[in-house]
């Protein structure tokens, strides 16, 4: 029976699977460490002013953020820009964006939607006022000026 096998040449041995758990664990830990929660990539500088009379923003799912500040990319100048999601926007884009945010929430949550204005402290009020006027037009009346904790007199 052994005739079919050539003498002297052995079969390739089974690959040892004893290190398989190690490899799997290594992968698990690698992804656990490198994964971050999805967050917007900031294209504007966002050093917010300080304030004392602040409230905690509950229900993060009901908050949508508008970022305003000078662009991080110096080539784009120092004038403050508006950032919605991951792109620069004009005040005229806000109405559509609010509508999109509302559509992505359930019917019951829509009236509770709060717009968080995350504005760089050196921004001029002109652009902030424009944004607020747009929000009023579309009926997004609940707003919050996101700030850091600290004395407002040091701003």
């Amino acid at each position, binding site marked *: 029976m052994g005739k079919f096998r050539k003498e002297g040449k052995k079969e390739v041995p089974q690959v040892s699977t004893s290190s398989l758990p190690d490899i799997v664990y290594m992968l698990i830990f690698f992804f656990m460490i490198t994964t971050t929660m999805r967050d917007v990539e900031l294209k504007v500088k966002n050093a917010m002013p300080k*304030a004392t009379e602040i409230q905690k923003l509950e229900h993060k799912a009901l908050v949508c953020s508008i970022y305003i500040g000078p662009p991080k990319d110096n080539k784009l100048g120092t004038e403050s820009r508006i950032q919605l999601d991951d792109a620069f926007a004009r005040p005229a884009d806000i109405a559509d964006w609010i509508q999109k945010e509302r559509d992505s929430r359930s019917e019951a949550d829509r009236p509770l939607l709060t717009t968080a204005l995350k504005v760089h402290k050196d921004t001029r009020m002109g652009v902030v006022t424009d944004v607020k006027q747009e929000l*009023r037009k579309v009926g997004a009346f609940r707003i919050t000026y996101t*700030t*850091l904790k600290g004395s407002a007199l040091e701003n």
Partner: protein
Amino acid sequence: MDVDYGITRRLPPPVEQNDEDVKVKERNVMNVMVNKSDRLLVNGRPSDISQLKDLAKDFMTPRPGDETAPEVETKTFDLVGDVLMSKGVISLQNDRGTSYSMYISVQNELARAFNEMKEDLAWKKFHKHLDQLNEDQTKAINDAVPVRVSEAEPVEYKSN
């Protein structure tokens, strides 16, 4: 997860184009203006941000019989009973060139004035600090001390 904090405000609904201006008596209004170089003007007089809280609190404190102070009225609320309320309104106006940090400072100081008045009332009525009140008591205090800050409609300055 990071937690966000902020000053919460409610925007007024847009005004109709031909809406008549609501007439408010002059004695009921405290004008707070911030110009483009972040200078503060309270009722036409230059002022400093460090004084704003006391000025606002002083203005909103009811003083019956004083002709120069805002009008007062007595309203009845659940839990807190009769409260003497000022009809005063703080009108906030800023320039397009005002910096955002100055705007936040002003908003913060005004909020501080109202929060201190709430704290005073909470102590007077319930002998408790504001953050120790239960939900109904907090609501009663918030109703009795409304944050009467009105932001002026932005003015378009047209250069000829």
